[in-house]
Structure formats: structure tokens, C-alpha cells
């Protein structure tokens, strides 16, 4: 209880918001639009999980939004070819993993600070993509949509993939030695080295994994509409990082859980639709978003302050 107070306070805020909705706008919980909204959110959850792992190892990746765009375009271009969905997925994950490997090499290999490295790759990828594609949409073949399944099934599949990734990573970080190594490296890289772990390799692999997850998420997003907007993913990094830190992953590494990330993610991605359902004027969007982020973390701060240290 004490250990998970932060996650609980975030979850508490979420429950509060949902209660308000249940009273004032019960339509929010109608199954069909809900499923659609969940499917839209699913790829972002995958990215948030990935970035949580990165932050756990005391790094950060702000290039994921740009990488998401690059992966989407790459997958879109391949999808029009003969290899279809598997080809698109493989390409996307490969492109993502390569992008992650570049970040990882610079961070783990050369020891450059990750925020700087990924800031650089963020602008480079984003502007490079703009130069290359000029913002022109890519039309996808029809078979691409919902992996060729009927829509509802497709939406369910997308959501299940996201939940699967979440659960797999949550179990991995808690119950697999490799997951615990992330915590160890994030908590103290030198101590990890002395304990016989390989912090640099770990960091590198986390970045590669992050990239691959971005690639997978790009495809999960791609199947939801018949066109690729090359600007897609803009601002995604902030959304994902916000979900992770609001969910209690410490930016100083080594602390936090994916369940917290899940709570943080749900809270943040509920706010916008909630405001629409509540009929709040859109110019209150950002202010409410900010206020709710602060609300969710203030409770935790309050407790810690009263707890002494």
C-alpha cells in the first residue's frame, strides 16, 4: 500500500473522473464508441509501455514521435507492395529497431546523454521525413484495414495486442530476471556493472526494444484507417512520457511499475473525450489536462511531505 501510493493516487483520480462521467455523461461507457476509442488509444499504450522501460533504465527517448511517423510511412509504402501486412509489420518494426539502435549506440556506446541524443534524432527524423514526403498522404490497400478482419474483431485484436504487450512487459519487469536488470541498471549503473550485469548492453537493448515497439504501434495505428498521414505521431513522445511519469515511473530511474503507467495512461487519455462528453468548451482542454496531471501527483507529494523524508 505504502509502496504503491503513487499509482493508487493516480488510479484514484481516474476513478473520480469516471464517476463524474458515470453521473453526468453515462453515454461515455457505451460499448461501441468505447471500443473504438480504446482501439485508437491502444498503439499509444504500447509506446507508453516502451518509454516506461526506457525511463526505468534512467534514460529517456523523445524521438519516438518522429520515429512513429517514419515507421508509419515506411510500413505504408511497403503495404502497397506484394508482401502485405506481414511485410508492413516487419518493415515497421525493423525501421523502428534500427532507429532505436542508432539512439542506443549513441547513448550506450558513446555515453552521450539520452535526452540530447534523442532530441537530435527527433528533429532530424521529423524534418527529414517532411523533406522526403512533403506531407503527402499514402493510400493503403483495403486489405490492410483491421488486418483484413471485420471492424469490431479488428478493434478487439488491436486492443488485445496492446493489453498483451502491457501484461507481458509488466510480468517481464517483475518476474523475469531481465526485467529486474532494467531496474538495477536504472538504479545504479556502476553497482550493476560491479554485480556482473552489463549496463551498456542493457541500455542498448532497451532502446532497440523501444524502437521495435514503436514500429509495432505504428502498424497497430495504421490498420485503423486507409490512409497514412506522414505527420502522424507528432507530440506522441510527450503523451507517452507524461503517462509514464504521471504513472509513477521516476525520471531518476529504477522505480515505477507498468501498472502505474497503465493508470497514468488511462487517466491522460480519458481527459479529452471526457471533456467532450461533459460538453466543456475546448479552450479549457489544456488547462484541465494540466490541472488533472498536477492533481494526480500532488496527493503523492502531500503524503511524502507529511511522511518526513
Amino acid at each position: 500500500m505504502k509502496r504503491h501510493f503513487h499509482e493508487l493516487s493516480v488510479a484514484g483520480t481516474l476513478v473520480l473522473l469516471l464517476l463524474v462521467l458515470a453521473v453526468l455523461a453515462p453515454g461515455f461507457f457505451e460499448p461501441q464508441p468505447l471500443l473504438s476509442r480504446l482501439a485508437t488509444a491502444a498503439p499509444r499504450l504500447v509506446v507508453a509501455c516502451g518509454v516506461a522501460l526506457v525511463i526505468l533504465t534512467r534514460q529517456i527517448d523523445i524521438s519516438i514521435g518522429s520515429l512513429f511517423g517514419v515507421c508509419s510511412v515506411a510500413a505504408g509504402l511497403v503495404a502497397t507492395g506484394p508482401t502485405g501486412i506481414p511485410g508492413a509489420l516487419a518493415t515497421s518494426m525493423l525501421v523502428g529497431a534500427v532507429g532505436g539502435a542508432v539512439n542506443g549506440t549513441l547513448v550506450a556506446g558513446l555515453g552521450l546523454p539520452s535526452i540530447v541524443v534523442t532530441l537530435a534524432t527527433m528533429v532530424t527524423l521529423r524534418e527529414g521525413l517532411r523533406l522526403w514526403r512533403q506531407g503527402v498522404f499514402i493510400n493503403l490497400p483495403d486489405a490492410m484495414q483491421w488486418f483484413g478482419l471485420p471492424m469490431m474483431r479488428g478493434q478487439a485484436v488491436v486492443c488485445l495486442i496492446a493489453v498483451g504487450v502491457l501484461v507481458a512487459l509488466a510480468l517481464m519487469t517483475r518476474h523475469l530476471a531481465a526485467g529486474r536488470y532494467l531496474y538495477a541498471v536504472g538504479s545504479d549503473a556502476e553497482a550493476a556493472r560491479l554485480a556482473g550485469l552489463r549496463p551498456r548492453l542493457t541500455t542498448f537493448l532497451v532502446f532497440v526494444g523501444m524502437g521495435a515497439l514503436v514500429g509495432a504501434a505504428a502498424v497497430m495505428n495504421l490498420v485503423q484507417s486507409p490512409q497514412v498521414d506522414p505527420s502522424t505521431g507528432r507530440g506522441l513522445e510527450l503523451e507517452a512520457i507524461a503517462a509514464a511519469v504521471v504513472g509513477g515511473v521516476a525520471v531518476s530511474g529504477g522505480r515505477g511499475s507498468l501498472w502505474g503507467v497503465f493508470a497514468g495512461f488511462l487517466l491522460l487519455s480519458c481527459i479529452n473525450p471526457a471533456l467532450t462528453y461533459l460538453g466543456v468548451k475546448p479552450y479549457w482542454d489544456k488547462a484541465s489536462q494540466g490541472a488533472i496531471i498536477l492533481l494526480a501527483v500532488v496527493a503523492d507529494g502531500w503524503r511524502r511531505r507529511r511522511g518526513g523524508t
Partner: protein
Amino acid sequence: GPSNNSASGDGATQTAGGSGKKLMIALMPKSKGNAYFVSCKQGAERAAKELGVDLVFDGPTNPDPAKQNEIIENWITLGVDAIAAACENRDGISTALRKAQAKGIKVITYDSDAQPDARSFFVNQATPEGIGYTLMDEAGRLVGPSGEFAIITASLTAANMNEWQKHIEARRKEKFPNLKMVALRPCDDLKDKAQAEATTLLGAYPNLNLIMAICSPAVPGSAEAVKQAGKAGKVKVIGLGLPSENRRYVKDGVTDSVILWKTEDLGYLAVHAAKGLADGTLKPGAKSYQAGALGQFEIVGDHLLLGKPFIFNKDNIDQFNF
């Protein structure tokens, strides 16, 4: 293709109007990487080639009025001969454009205007009023005298979209008082976000009759949402967008009509008129302008009229590929 073919390597302090030297014309979009302006640029490049001028095409990567000013100020010191700008913020950019005029640079605006004293001509593809009225009339025609509609815009601060909304609202009050505008949502100029917003709107407002998407990525985004919600035909989609991005939805009957002008012609005319202004073929007070291959254009006051906005629908959309 390559956006300019300038070969003038010398950094001489050449000012406007120098004879025997290629003119340099600068064209500014509201933001780069936006398909609408990419299409304008194609026309602009065609005009530049025909006229033998150097074309510079640059603008902010995201709609950012301050950045527009910075680029124009850089163009002034760069020594371009004429500037054609699509203005994100009417008042903000006028300061910079006036400065350009004071330095002898010819200025026209296109797509969205600046203040009248900050430019010589406005290449008018459609006035904000015209756009607003057309959209509202189209909505009224599709929905009938009473019902609900929602607007999806790029951002709450986008100046021209706010301008359009003003006219939409005016027209609504005047002609369709029982058509209710129930919600306005921003989509950050992202198609995916527009799709998500539209999905939420459809759930939150079960009686919605129409979605009006006034930024180009929002039209296909909204259409996809309506289609996925199984409300095609029940909830109409209209908006401002490119035919190429909307063709499938228009043909499927999800999107009823997309309103736009010939964007390539807009770019072409903007560059052509800027060149005319710079070399004296177009003078203030003129009543018409001969723009190369596109023919004669009427001038009303200081507005160069491109023609009325065009409504693309099922019947005619296949004839256009931009």
C-alpha cells in the same frame, strides 16, 4: 522534384528590379509539409519555370505566425524581389510585410490576406466570407432547417479558421437558426487525432447530423470515423480538403462534399502576379491580369479573383487529381 533551380552563386548586394538578372520570388505557405500548400507549390513551380524566375518556397514547419515574420524579415535582408505570402496571422505578419514594401520589395498575399496596406494585391481564391457561407449553405442543404452539427478545426488559435467560423456562425444565425453548432474540437492538424475526435463526438452527440471539418487532414479523419461508427449517410461530412485525400470517401458516399479551389492554379497565379508586380506588368489599379497559360483574371479593387470555391462531389471528383 527540386523546388528551385537557382544558380546565382554570387552573393552580390542585388536589390529589386535589377535588369538582366533573374528575379527572385519568395512564396510562403502557412506551414510546410501540408498537402494543400504542397499542391500550391506545384503550380508555383510551373509558373516559375515558365517565367524564368527563381522561386524560394519556405515557411514554418508548423503553423507559427512569429516564425513567418522571421522568415519574411530574412527574405528582406536576403534581397528577394517579390514576396507572396499566405498569412497565418493577419495583424502579426503585416508589420513584416510593410517593412518589405518599404525596402522596395513587391508584396502580394494569397490564400489568406494581410492588412490591405501591407500588400499590393491579394490573390483571392475565396474570401473567408465566401468559404464560411459556402460551408454553411452546404450544411443547410444536407441537413435541412434543423439539426446538430460539430466543427473540427486544426487548432483553437489558427487565425483563418477562426475567421471562417465567424462567418459560418453569421450565416447560421441568418439562414439556419435551428441548426445547432454543438461542439468545436481541435485536431492539431493531424488526421489520426481528427479521427479520434470525430469518434468521440459521434458518441457524445448521438443526434449529430453533420461534421464540418475545416482543416484538410480533418476531412478524411472525420469521414473514417463516421464510416467506422456505421453512420455513413446518417451523419454527413463536409469540409475543406484536397480531392485526392477524400476521393474514396466521397465515392463511398461517406463524405458528401469537399470544398476547395484549384490549389495549383492558386500557386501559379500567386507567383505569376508577384512577377508581374515586380517587373511592372501588373500595376496597382489594373482591372485584369493575363496570367500566362491560365488566361485572364479579373481584378476587383485589389483582389485578384481566382474564381469561386469549387464543390467536389461524387460526380466530379474523379476529374481532379491534386
